[in-house]
């Protein structure tokens, strides 16, 4: 790394609230959904409660979730995990990919209520506690993978999920593994190079 600074708009104005990545409960409930959207239905036995606990990046988080709320929305707007992006909200771009019990899913297309008992891993949960990057993240640093990077976290999560099951892929196999992710900068070639480097980093058991 060079000594360059990232923009620090967040800290500059206290008016803008930074995204809270590690809070214990629901952050910033004031811009959440009003509570009056429940329908006046006679509850049946299987009707789910709104206040639920989900496990994200190793932490159990209690959160008030609407019935129709997608996991992407919960992550981005209730847990402050904005590394997961919404590119299409229709399972057609992959920017919202997260791991659910180690399997890549489009978080835009699953209800948060369906993952109550599952382990969610997002891009924010990949690096070690001391900040050491995941080998796949390091591979991208090594090869300057991606351009605008809006698709990047989704690609990373797809690759991490794929590589768990296929640690030694060919370039073509890895392309299939991450084929559910769209890059509009069309940096596919450099992306594959960087993810192959990530796979190599994983096999070496090192990230640097």
């Amino acid at each position, binding site marked *: *790394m*060079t*000594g*360059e*600074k*990232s*923009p620090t*708009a*967040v800290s500059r104005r206290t*008016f*803008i*609230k*930074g*995204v809270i990545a590690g809070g214990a409960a629901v952050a910033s409930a*004031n*811009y*959440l*959904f*009003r509570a009056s959207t429940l329908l006046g239905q006679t509850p049946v036995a299987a009707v789910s409660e709104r206040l639920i606990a989900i496990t994200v990046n190793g932490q159990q988080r209690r959160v008030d979730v609407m019935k129709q709320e997608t996991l992407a929305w919960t992550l981005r707007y209730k847990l402050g*995990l*904005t*590394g997961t*992006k*919404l*590119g299409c*909200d*229709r399972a*057609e*771009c992959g920017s919202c990919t997260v791991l659910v019990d180690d399997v890549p899913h489009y978080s835009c297309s699953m209800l948060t209520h369906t993952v109550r008992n599952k382990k969610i891993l997002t*891009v*924010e949960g*990949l690096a070690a506690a001391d900040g050491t990057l995941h080998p796949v*993240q390091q591979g*991208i*640093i090594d*090869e*300057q993978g991606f*351009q*605008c*990077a*809006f698709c*990047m976290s989704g690609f*990373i999560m797809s690759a991490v999920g794929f590589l768990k099951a296929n640690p030694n892929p060919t370039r073509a196999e890895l*392309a*299939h593994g*991450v*084929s559910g992710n*769209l*890059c*509009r*900068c*069309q*940096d*596919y*070639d*450099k*992306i*594959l190079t960087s993810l*192959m*480097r990530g796979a190599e980093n994983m096999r070496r058991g090192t990230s640097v």
Partner: protein
Amino acid sequence: MSSKAAGSNNSIEPQYGKGQKLIGKNYVTADLHAKVTGQAKYAEDFRAEGMLFCKLLLSPLPHARVRHIDTSAALAMPGVKAILTADDLPAPADSVTDNGAVVKASKWGERGLTMEPVYQGEPVLAVAAVDELTAADAIEKIQIDFEPLPFVIDPLETLRPGGPNPRTDGNVWVTPQTPPGPPEVKELKWTEADFSEYKDGRLPMGKTPNEWSHGDLDAGFKNAALVLDETFVTPDTSHETLETRSAMAYWQNGKVYVHSGTQSTWQTLPVLARWLNMDPSKVVFISEYTGGGFGSKVTGGVSMIIPALLSKKANAPVMMRISREEETFIGRARPGFRGRMKVGFSREGRIIALDMFVVSDNGPYDAQGDVPTSGRIASLLYQPQAMRWRGVTVLTNTPPRSAQSSPGGLQAIVIIEPIIAKAARKLGLDQVAIRRINCPEGKAPFGPPVQDKLQYATSAFLKEALDRGAEQFKWKERVARTPKRIGSKVRGVGVSLSCYVGGTIGFDGLLVIGPDGRIRFQSGIGNLGTESMIDVHRVAAEILGVPWERCDVVWGDTSKNFPYTCVSGGSQTTHAMTRAAHAVAMETKKRLQEIAARSLGGNPEDYDVGNERVFRKGGGQGLTLAQAAQKAIEFGGIYDGHEAAKDINKVTQAAVAALAGQGLVAAARDNYGRDGSTFSYVASFAEVEVDVETGKYNIVDFLAYADVGTVIHPRALGGQVLGRSILGIGHAIGQKWVFDPHYGEMVSKRFYQNKPPTILDLPVDMQWGALDIPDPETPVGARGIGEPPVGGGCASILNALSDALGDEIFQRAPVNLDTILTSLEAGRPMQHPLTAHI
């Protein structure tokens, strides 16, 4: 000099930047760590206390007038805070050029919301509420009554006698020539006779508002060994940036703060201020990371004023999350062209006469530059000895267009390249050879003529790129390989020339050397991930001999004092801003020498700069940069920003004044000369395999070899060369719009319907190369790269397809398996090229 050997999985460190420490070398950009960890913030990632959400009511009709709106039921809902309509928009502001000339606001301009929508999906009003669900429910409670107006989605339909007009006062953009003025909407109708060849798939050629020519066209055709006259149609393609144009805004102490994506951070500020009709000093624009632009966000989008104005009305921050469907409507697209070219070739394949005619589908708003640009690119890239160009920019009730990577360039190249490929087959010439003989070289001339003289390029080494590329691609071996067909599979190879504008001049560089000895570059360039935002400043660090670890780059927020910076469009940034970086480095060096002389004695020229010091030549005493910065503060004036050079832009002067006293504050204008216009060039090569029983084809291999001057950052360059090639390839293999012409509505709103390329639609290993020959007309030698590869990406695929299948298969792009299969069955092109949006 390729960055990556074919078939390898790992990049090989290229041999660029000989004798340099930073230029031509790979490095880790400062924005990458935040990106890989998910900490990078795009517009929709910002949150503010009490933030409201806004949703848009879009026009369901392609052209209509709002007769009546009743928002009472919506406003009565709990949680609904405000509704914004066109009545709430400020009057369109005039703009003032750098020379002080006032450009009156166009009465045909786009304003963000409207009571006369001119395309399906145009925003009519916006609702702010406590959450998205409430805002959406509120929109469903709004009673709105539209009066349908005549509409047209086919640009040829409106040119027919009696054809409907897309706007109430006309159907074409006409730019007055004498006296010159801004474009105006006029009515243009062709005659029935003009349309006589339409049914045969030949583009009608009625009168056009614009035309130019040079040389003796008639003589050229008369002397030609081969004359071809072909119609070709290019697709309308949405930019489809992965980040939609979401925006968030709030007001504080009379200033409005707007977060949104842009290609050009500093340049968006005056445009946004004009849209809001506000003083730029009252507007702060923040764009740290932008999720793709490709021309659709050159200065952001006018829709970002919606949350800004709603925020004022509702007295709370407002987030406008733009959905993918909304982005498809408001997110911009490339104008599709209907083109016709008559080309005369000599026996050797030299183009001796070119008669070019283009019709552009411009959508309902601002006149795009694609039409005039197409003539310039065709003229430069193929060097016709005589040429006539005619073009018309036609309005339609389809989503608004904007520049898209290689605007007008892609269309020109894609229309002409299949003709050249066909000519080579007819003349028995090699495809590389026929391009080599027409290739621009050196200070290559191009039209239109200005005062009867052709313009010319700064340089062109495309012939070398073509030769190197052909060698690396093993062109001759591929051409000679037999058999061409095995079972139902046929292979074909294609090559294309490609070029686009590659640089502007006259911008400013600005840096600060702090008392800690670090250099801080003030970068007003947008962050699209092309990395030019950071790359260009390495030129200054190289000149000053400062290790990159001792440099910082500040970007992404117009309140942070940026210099006068080019827009990142037209592939100008690398050229323009390396020049500015060079200028400010030379200025800094001069000031350091002066500081050293004043502090240590002697003359400035006795001192040199390097190794983070200014020191006496031949050894001896000197100052560290930290000490020099401290001295600069002591000396004040020109040294610490209390004075500024007179020739820098007033914007830069204001930034210098704001930074004054922080250290050695240096600013300089790019005053370097330039003889000619700057372009960059690419030679593109492709091989395809077609299954003639299904029409399905795969791209087997692809190489783009670039002539872009000095290489600054190899990995970023490779990403641009291949990434923008694929943007072009998308036009060949699938991207398109589909409209129902009866209702004027788009039916291809989803990705699975409009087909942006996936990772499995491309070769698993693509190749690129760059000549690394400096452009002689710029001090660093670097030209731009974003757009030059695009046309060749598309055309090389089309040419490979016709090599495999013959000339009688397609007359339009994209070429899909249905086109191929039906034409192979019939033995002639079966898709009418001029039927719009199929």
